[in-house]
């Protein structure tokens, strides 16, 4: 494959960014919107072409006797730290990359289209599209990275574009603080990422993924068994790198920025905080998968973090009022799902064991794909609802199914998909993941099945509270209605995808080592998960379909737990305490004080002392000439005496 298309895929969104960002001021909204959508559409088409060529062309560069290859389309030097450590900007084409290309461009295009309707009449429309293009560019650059440093570069860029988009309504203080929070938290995580890169590449002497992942044992050897505080250096490196992933993918305890990120426009949440950017962490782990597999400790770390987060987020999601926050927490929980399934996967093993070892990886990626689709769908649906009701709050909704049929049906499909009900896409991916977990250790399986159940529960709780429950009296004078076509088309499209995506033979396309993998349903696992899901849905139906006082009963049954969950177990409070009280109060302020009152004062002190001395000795100049003569005479004598004593 020539370099033209790949370069265009990267260049086009960036060009659109510059065009809309600089020229946008002069453009009308219509022009800007159309330009943005066209640009994105073109990028999508190109991305599709590339992806399909990779998967189906059968070109030996891509697939060699049945094994899909990693192919560096181009790799140009950007910055050479040393002879060996050279940062390159390149385009690495391999299964996950191709898949991500599809996901990103599709969702991004849908969001572009959707936003045309949704952002109608917002100030800074052009700026909005510019930022969207910037984000798409950064995200594409991230997934096609040939080396970890390129990934870091675009990692930062997606961070900043997310900052810009969250803070799009920058007149609202809440939006500003949310964007700040998002940036700083992820930045903090990226510090870990950076240190990880430093540590790792200090030994590997290369940034390149292929070099590192092709023979991971070699990486281990290069570290020469160096250890730090008990753990091997490689473990440290991988864990630190994973920290970066935790930040972007909102794993506990770095998850706090994601719920607030919902302050941004809803399509943005759909694109960035549901489908693409937040899975960057997963993608990172998948990229470095073989190296992670070398050090079990780091894999365990990934699994544990994922498991805890998944459960935590699911529980919190059950108690949120703001529909976007519910979706946000469900996103966190789903991503944690993927983390766990990566964590339980491994490269090694033989025979029957070998059948499962790679499963987690495949399933994780599969879920990444399906989740992107249905979660984007859900968010866009939520957007349509908010657009109709002008509120994020389900208490302002209820009984909307009559008023907004399209939204209703698409939303329902999304819920079914995420709940893991066949034949919707979510079922297949989740089933594979659970299978992998059970295979690794039944505890993980059981635990995550429970989380799956919770997922089904809170999603349907949400669904019922929005579309059933009881009608909001306000509808009388303000009748909600379905969104304009620009918004409905994406909903329908994504809904369709969510229905069929499950039947994609994913194992044929994306596996950790490129060798095809034949999916077959694990009957026991599938059954349990379906049963659990159905039970959860039934419960939700019981509680929320018609207006009743069961929910309040539950709430009052365990008030402490409910409030805690509702307040997201007080993580924000903890962070506020740390930042404001500790960082600002106990470090910055004292340092600033110290600077002014100790160091600066010392410098001024020199001047003051000199002044004082000069006043103290003025008596010497008494104006009486005999005193002068005395000084003269005894000064001379003293000089003589001292010299005499010193020398003789």
């Amino acid at each position, binding site marked *: 494959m020539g370099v033209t298309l790949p370069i265009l895929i990267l260049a086009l969104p960036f060009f659109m960014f510059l065009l809309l960002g600089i020229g946008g001021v002069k453009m009308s909204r219509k022009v800007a919107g159309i330009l943005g959508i066209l640009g994105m559409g073109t990028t999508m088409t190109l991305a599709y072409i590339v992806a399909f060529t990779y998967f189906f062309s059968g070109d030996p560069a891509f697939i060699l006797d049945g094994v899909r290859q990693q192919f560096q389309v181009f790799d140009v030097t950007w910055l050479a730290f040393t002879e060996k450590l050279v940062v390159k900007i390149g385009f690495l084409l391999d299964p996950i990359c191709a898949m991500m290309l599809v996901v990103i461009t599709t969702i991004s295009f849908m969001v572009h289209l959707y936003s045309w309707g949704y952002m109608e009449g917002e100030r800074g429309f052009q700026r909005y599209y510019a930022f969207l293009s910037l984000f798409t560019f950064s995200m594409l650059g991230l997934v096609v990275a040939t080396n970890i440093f390129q990934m870091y570069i675009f990692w930062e860029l997606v961070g900043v574009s997310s900052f810009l988009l969250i803070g799009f309504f920058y007149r609202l203080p809440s939006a500003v603080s949310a964007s700040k929070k998002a940036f700083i938290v992820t930045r903090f995580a990226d510090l870990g990422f950076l240190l990880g890169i430093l540590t790792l590449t200090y030994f590997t002497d290369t940034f390149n993924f292929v070099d590192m992942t092709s023979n991971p044992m070699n990486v281990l050897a290069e570290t020469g068994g160096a250890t730090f505080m008990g753990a091997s250096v490689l473990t440290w490196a991988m864990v630190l790198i994973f920290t970066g992933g935790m930040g972007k993918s909102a794993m506990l305890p770095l998850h706090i920025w994601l719920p607030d990120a919902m302050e941004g426009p809803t399509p943005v949440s759909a694109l960035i905080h549901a489908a693409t950017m937040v899975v960057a962490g997963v993608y990172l782990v998948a990229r470095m998968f073989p190296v992670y597999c070398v050090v079990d400790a780091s894999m365990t770390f990934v699994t544990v973090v994922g498991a805890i987060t998944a459960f935590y987020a699911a529980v919190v999601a059950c108690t949120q009022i703001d529909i976007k926050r519910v979706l946000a927490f469900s996103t966190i929980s789903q991503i944690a799902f993927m983390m766990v399934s990566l964590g339980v996967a491994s490269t090694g093993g033989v025979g029957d064991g070998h059948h499962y070892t790679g499963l987690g990886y495949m399933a994780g990626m599969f879920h990444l794909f399906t989740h992107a689709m249905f979660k984007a769908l859900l968010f866009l649906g939520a957007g349509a609802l908010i657009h109709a009701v002008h509120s994020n709050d389900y208490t302002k909704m209820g009984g909307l199914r009559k008023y907004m049929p399209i939204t209703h049906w698409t939303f329902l499909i999304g819920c079914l998909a995420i709940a893991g009900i066949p034949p919707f896409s979510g079922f297949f991916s989740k089933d594979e993941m659970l299978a992998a977990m059970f295979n690794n250790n039944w505890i993980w399986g059981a635990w995550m099945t429970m989380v799956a159940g919770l997922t089904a529960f809170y999603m349907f709780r949400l669904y019922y509270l929005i579309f059933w429950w009881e009608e909001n009296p306000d509808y009388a004078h303000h009748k909600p209605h379905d969104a304009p076509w620009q918004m409905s088309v994406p909903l329908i499209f994504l809904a369709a995808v969510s229905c069929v995506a499950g039947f994609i033979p994913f194992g044929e396309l994306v596996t950790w080592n490129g060798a095809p993998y034949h999916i077959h349903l694990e009957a026991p696992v599938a059954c349990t998960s379906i049963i659990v899901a159905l039970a959860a849905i039934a419960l939700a139906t019981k509680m929320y379909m018609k207006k009743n006082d069961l929910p309040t009963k539950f709430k009052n049954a365990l008030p402490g737990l409910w409030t805690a969950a509702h307040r997201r177990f007080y993580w924000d409070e903890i962070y506020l305490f740390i930042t404001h009280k500790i960082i600002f109060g106990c470090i910055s302020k004292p340092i600033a004080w110290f600077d002014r009152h100790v160091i600066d004062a010392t410098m001024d002190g020199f001047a003051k002392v000199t002044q004082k001395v000069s006043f103290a000795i*003025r008596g010497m*100049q*008494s*104006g*009486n*000439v*005999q005193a002068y*003569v*005395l000084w003269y*005479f005894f000064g001379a004598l003293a000089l003589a005496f001292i010299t005499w004593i010193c020398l003789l």
Partner: protein
Amino acid sequence: MDLNILWYLVPSVVMFAAGVYGFVTRKNMIAMLVSLELILNSADLNFVIFNRFLFPDSMEGMVFSLFAIAIAAAETAVAIAIIINIYRAIGSTDIVETNKMKH
């Protein structure tokens, strides 16, 4: 008894000390000039003594002391003139009167 160098040096040193003492204690400018003469004379005396005792075969010390005396005279003359000026200006020759400029 023979007069060695000390017999002459001691008085000159005494003169010097007395001169300095007078110079810094007397309030009257004329008196100060008088004590100044003591110092100068002790210096001249030294020259003569050293010449006489240490280098009897050359006359430099003697000559030098002659010049020194002349110079002393000149100095005194100028000093007196200025003292007269002061007396005209402030009607007193008291040295402590003249400390308007200080610090």
